[in-house]
């Protein structure tokens, strides 16, 4: 016969017995909050198609996550909000006018193939939103490179256009043939580029969430203030892009930083915890690599934009960077 137990047991655990209350859910919530300004800017510039794309991606990601966990017979992880973040980030990296079934396909790919197949949050080698974007870019090249003009409803005769990046690519080419082309920090009058101010507020064609540099910067500042991200990756990424374009010529350096996916990539995509290095030095290397590859693709590659590919390539070398940049313990012998 089993002896009588005391009714209440104390919890036995190893120290520490107190916690900072940080949680994955709270971090993801912070990221969502930080993405709100650029989401709002995207909706402001691109209207209802942006709303539908965002809603579709977020909903599909949540449903896919739930179904995957169910299929794998594991506890549900919708509560940690990481699926919402993935869906939102993917939507913000899509053109506003994309057919919604493509957005659904991309979202399923992001959560199903890029995240849950590897075991869920924390295990995925590649940023799910970016991998899905790359998948869509290759599968649906046409729709993925058809950009709505900001306030497209005002010009019903020409709703779509090319992004400034395409013009910038030709500027690189011009640079190599006739080096006389003027370039500088902010003289955006060259090559039919939009004014720097338009690039900063987001009054340019592009993906929903990447156009407004100012809105992205506000979100990034919030993340830095909440200590969700550190300055290393965004700073190294942006500085590399800036310095590269100063040296290489072509479009003005500020224009290179403000257009395309560089801002959202540096602040939100490259800083994804799971797929970026954990050490401070590693983060600097990672940011530098992202910036360099991004600019190499922009200058020499087949696509006008290389930001997502740059981050994906650096994702793949992240374990290596981690290994090379292990911290030295306090008091370690040399």
């Amino acid at each position: 016969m089993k002896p009588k137990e005391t009714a209440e047991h104390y919890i036995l655990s190893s120290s520490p017995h107190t916690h900072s209350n940080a949680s994955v859910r709270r971090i993801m919530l912070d990221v969502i909050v930080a993405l709100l300004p650029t989401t709002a800017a995207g909706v402001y510039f691109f209207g209802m198609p942006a709303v539908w794309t965002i809603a579709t991606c977020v909903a599909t990601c949540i449903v896919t996550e739930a179904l995957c966990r169910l299929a794998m017979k594991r506890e549900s992880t919708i509560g940690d909000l990481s699926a919402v973040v993935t869906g939102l980030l993917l939507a913000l990296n899509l053109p506003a006018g994309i057919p919604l079934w493509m957005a659904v396909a991309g979202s399923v790919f992001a959560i199903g193939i890029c995240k849950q197949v590897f075991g869920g949050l924390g295990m995925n080698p590649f940023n799910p939103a970016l991998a899905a974007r790359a998948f869509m870019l290759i599968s649906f090249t046409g729709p993925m490179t058809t950009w709505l003009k900001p306030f497209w409803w005002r010009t019903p005769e020409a709703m779509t256009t090319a992004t400034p990046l395409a013009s910038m690519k030709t500027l690189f080419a011009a640079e190599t043939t006739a080096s006389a082309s003027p370039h500088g920090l902010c003289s955006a009058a060259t090559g039919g580029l939009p004014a720097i101010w338009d690039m900063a507020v987001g009054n340019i064609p592009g993906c929903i969430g990447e156009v407004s540099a100012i809105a992205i910067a506000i979100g990034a500042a919030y993340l830095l203030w909440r200590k969700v991200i550190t300055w290393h990756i965004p700073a190294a990424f942006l500085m590399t892009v800036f310095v590269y374009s100063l040296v290489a010529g072509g479009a003005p350096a500020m224009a290179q930083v403000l257009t395309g996916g560089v801002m959202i990539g540096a602040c939100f995509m490259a800083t994804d915890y799971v797929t970026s290095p954990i050490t401070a030095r590693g983060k600097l290397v990672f940011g530098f690599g992202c910036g360099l590859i991004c600019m190499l693709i922009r200058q020499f590659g087949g696509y006008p934009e290389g930001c997502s590919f740059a981050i994906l390539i650096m994702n793949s070398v992240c374990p290596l960077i981690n290994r090379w940049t292990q911290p030295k313990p306090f008091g370690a012998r040399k």
Partner: protein
Amino acid sequence: MKTVKSSFKFRGGVHPDYNKELARGKAIEKMPVPAELVVSMSQHLGAPAKCMVKPGDFVARGQVIGEKNGFISVCVRAPADGKVKAIEKRLGPAGGMADAVILDTTAKPDGEAATAAPILPPLDWRAASREELLKRVEDAGICGMGGAGFPTAVKLNPPPGKRCEYLILNGAECEPYLCADHQVMVERADRIRLGVDIMRKVLGQPAVRIAVEANKPDAVAALEKAFADIEGNVEIVVLPVMYPQGSEKHQIFATVGRVVPEPPALPIDVGCVVENVGTVAAIADAVELGEPLLSRVTTVSGDAVVEPKNILAPCGTKYADLVAFCGGEKVPPAKVISGGTMMGFAVSTLEIATTRTTSGLLLLSSKRVFQYASGACINCGRCLRACPMRLNPAFISKVVDANDVKAAEDAHVMDCIECGACSFGCPAYRTITQSCRRAKASIRARIAAEKAKAAAAAGK
């Protein structure tokens, strides 16, 4: 003597909720001797003392009941008069089993009247030789009262060729809830002063640094008063409030800017000896009054205790008696912790008794207790930034999860001081600190097995 701000800041560290207001400023209350004491033979680091009594024996307060057993060991003395009820293996606060003498303090031997004479003859520290003073510290059974319980006499006697340049007094008390050292500094600053005089003589007049965290201004004021007339290179160093400021290595860095190399290096290798303030006061009592280390100040706190207190209780008091002295439980505790919340040990029963290293007893309600989870690491790097030893706790915990202890060893897990800063901030609520403990235990076991094997081979 002057008071300075710490000019060296170590990297890492965290800011837990200190909750010190519960017991802060509560004057030390002397607790009457409880009816039963459980005196462990293993109240210090090193070999347990050898039990010298048998059931039925009457023992007098201060009588040696456990003899020093080896170089790194100290004796155990009876904290009160009483009759030995039994000698049993009992669970200690840290979860290990050790022989303990169960004393019935209500039984008195017939005929003999209790004497009020000092247990050891008082010594004049100015006249006494260094050897006499060292012998006294050893006889009084003094060991570090900060937590590890390293025998003090061993620490005060550096090996040949090594000199103590700095005597550092640890009054940081960076653990949440605990106020025992704080209250000792406020109320017994003069004893600490005397203890410093004695230790300086033993150690060959080293410079003195008294480290106090900035959240204890009254302790700094009391120490300033007590040390006003001291001669030589003596400073009170006010440390920024940061956990783990009380870690020996980090305290040495914060006060004198020296870095203790990786294990097996000790503080003495960089010319430092660090002692807890409570230990220093105990040395003064042992020398001047002939009073061995029989009791200590313990903070009993937490939101499940009716009245948090700082209690001077005999070493061997059962936790249940301490709680009763504080008015009992306000609500049923969900967790009972021996020590502070960052490094203390969870215990399963209040039948466990205090030792010389029990600085606190916390009873926390379920509101204050969090649960560890086995969530996946999201690689956020909070543990790296928090680790005061600048390790990569995320990596270590992942490889330990995969049973790859070798990889953890290569990642310097043996440098880990188990301060808990990594687990404290982990958003996935992972058991990072416990993973480090697991790896360290496994590595220590392997090294011990290898040593035994080598010894056996040499024996052949």
